[in-house]
């Protein structure tokens, strides 16, 4: 044992018990577990999450909670009826049960939201990782591409594209993904850049790891937070885009129900049969609001530094 006392005396205990068993420590916890605890402490976020879960369940189990289909025009004699015990949300102008249409509209909107968000991640994650890891020219090119997508007013371009593609489920998903990946890419890029020069990456390089190895084994797992946040935040954006496009007539076409489309219809009957405008509006507002608050709560729990 080397004694450093001659130069600078050290603390009294130079020799402390080294071989201490780890069994006395509390249970090993992955860092994500603490994030989950933080999330649970945020009551607003938990509430929003529950509302969202409820809406999701209603959408998934739609056939079980509705008695008719959304396109059957069965109730022509009761056209434009206000809510009643038989038709909870009333009847629309073509004799369809409005409650059913709202529920199925939720299905459509939510599925577009989730699928488009998934594609946003599929596009944005690799691009963000590449831009963050390689920097330099690669980063510059990707930032230019992002800039291209940012300066064009997204709604106008989306309108153009929707008119081009003719509307419909697939094209809406594609368009929404096209405008959603940028946010995910920026989040991932930021995270990767922050970790890029950390010593554990250098250590892996010193061991001879290839860039792919480092990206997949270190950078991506450490980017889970921004990916989750990006995904959840992309959902309401996609839903709003779909609603907007449907509202303008280039989105989901009848008889498939979509809240945006129903709002458009509702305007025509607004002054007398305002229930036709109110319910889709409320449905959209509540869904988007709860999804966004849930996403914010997730973001705060996972990594507060991700705030704008």
């Amino acid at each position, binding site marked *: 044992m080397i004694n450093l006392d001659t*130069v600078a005396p050290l603390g009294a205990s130079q020799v402390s018990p080294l071989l201490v068993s780890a069994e006395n420590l509390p249970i090993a916890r992955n860092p994500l577990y603490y994030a989950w605890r933080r999330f649970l402490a945020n009551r607003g976020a938990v509430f929003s999450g529950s509302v969202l879960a409820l809406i999701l369940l209603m959408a998934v189990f739609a056939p079980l909670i509705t008695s008719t289909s959304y396109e059957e025009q069965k109730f022509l004699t009761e056209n434009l009826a206000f809510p009643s015990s038989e038709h909870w949300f009333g009847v629309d102008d073509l004799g369809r049960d409005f409650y059913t249409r709202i529920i199925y509209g939720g299905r459509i909107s939510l599925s577009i939201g989730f699928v488009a968000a998934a594609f946003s991640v599929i596009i944005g994650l690799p691009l963000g990782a590449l831009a963050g890891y390689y920097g330099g020219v690669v980063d510059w090119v990707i930032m230019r591409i992002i800039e291209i997508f940012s300066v064009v007013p997204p709604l106008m371009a989306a309108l153009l594209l929707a008119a081009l593609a003719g509307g419909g489920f697939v094209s809406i998903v594609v368009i929404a993904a096209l405008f959603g990946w940028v946010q995910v890419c920026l989040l991932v890029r930021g995270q990767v850049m922050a970790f890029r020069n950390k*010593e*554990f990456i250098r*250590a892996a390089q010193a061991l001879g790891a290839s860039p792919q190895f480092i990206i997949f084994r270190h950078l991506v797992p450490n980017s889970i937070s921004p990916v989750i946040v990006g995904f959840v935040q992309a959902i309401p954006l996609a839903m709003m885009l779909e609603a907007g496009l449907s509202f303008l007539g280039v989105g989901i076409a009848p008889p498939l129900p979509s809240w945006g489309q129903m709002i458009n219809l509702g305007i025509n009957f607004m002054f007398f049969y305002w229930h036709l405008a109110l319910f889709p509006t409320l449905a959209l507002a509540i869904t988007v609001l709860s999804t966004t608050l849930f996403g914010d709560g997730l973001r705060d729990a996972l990594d507060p530094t991700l705030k704008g």
Partner: protein
Amino acid sequence: MLASNSMTPALELRQLTKTFEIGGGFKSAFGRAKRMHLAVDCVDISVKPKSVLGLVGESGSGKSTCGLMAMRLLDATAGQILVNGTDITNLNSADLKPLRRKMQIIFQDSYASLDPMMTLARIIAEPFVIHDMYSHQERIETVGDLLERVGLDRSYANRYPHELSGGQRQRVSIARALALKPKILIADEPTSALDVSVKAQVINLLHDLQEEMGLSMLFISHELNVIRSLADEIIVMYKGRIVEQAPTEAIFQNAQHPYTKSLLYAIPSVNPRERSRRTFMSASQIAADIPVLARDDISIIGQERSGPQLVRISEDHFVEATVSN
């Protein structure tokens, strides 16, 4: 070459130079000249086999940069890096990979040295994954052995870095570095962020491991008292250049260069009578105080130039001095 015996050095840096660009970035296409910062200036370092070379200097002296270049984690602007005689300066990553098993590095920031999302077992086993060694069971065994070797109980294997103290994390970094049984270990300020008592433990550990495994170590630090206990030979760097090189005790008893002397004065001392000797010298004071030596007393290394240069004043003691005729 400054090595005084004829054995092939374990690690050798020849005329190593590194310049950094400041400002501008890569769009210099618009014709703006970039300002350059010379971080490392034609440095010759040679680590003898199975010995410890201490590299000392303040922040910005270029010592960490030398370490990173030696590991090929940073590209050198000029100069060569030789490992056991093999020139690795320009090898591509495929050729370099097998050689990487021979040399490893540990860093100052113990928390950033470990992937926060991985258990210790995965962290220490990573070298085996990269180099495709051992079966799964063998890896578990070896990781346990390594943990014990660095003084941690085997049961730590399933823990995460955030559950450990700084000293314990540093031990894990050491375990990971030693997994591939390297011949050369570069330690970049491994104890600078640790408490004094923990410093001693880690130094002791490194000393034992070095003797046991016959490691050749390049120990980079700014703390002379730490280096004294570990290094056989010391090189002092200042503003990217070597200003003094000698065996450890020669530095402590017989420092020649003003910068080395100021470092020695700065070592914290318990003895109150010694404290008054501490002085701080600015760059110009140091430049003014460089020893002026008569040409006959010394031998010049390499090409002679005007102004201060590295000269040999005894068999293994070198100083940057001005030569007078």
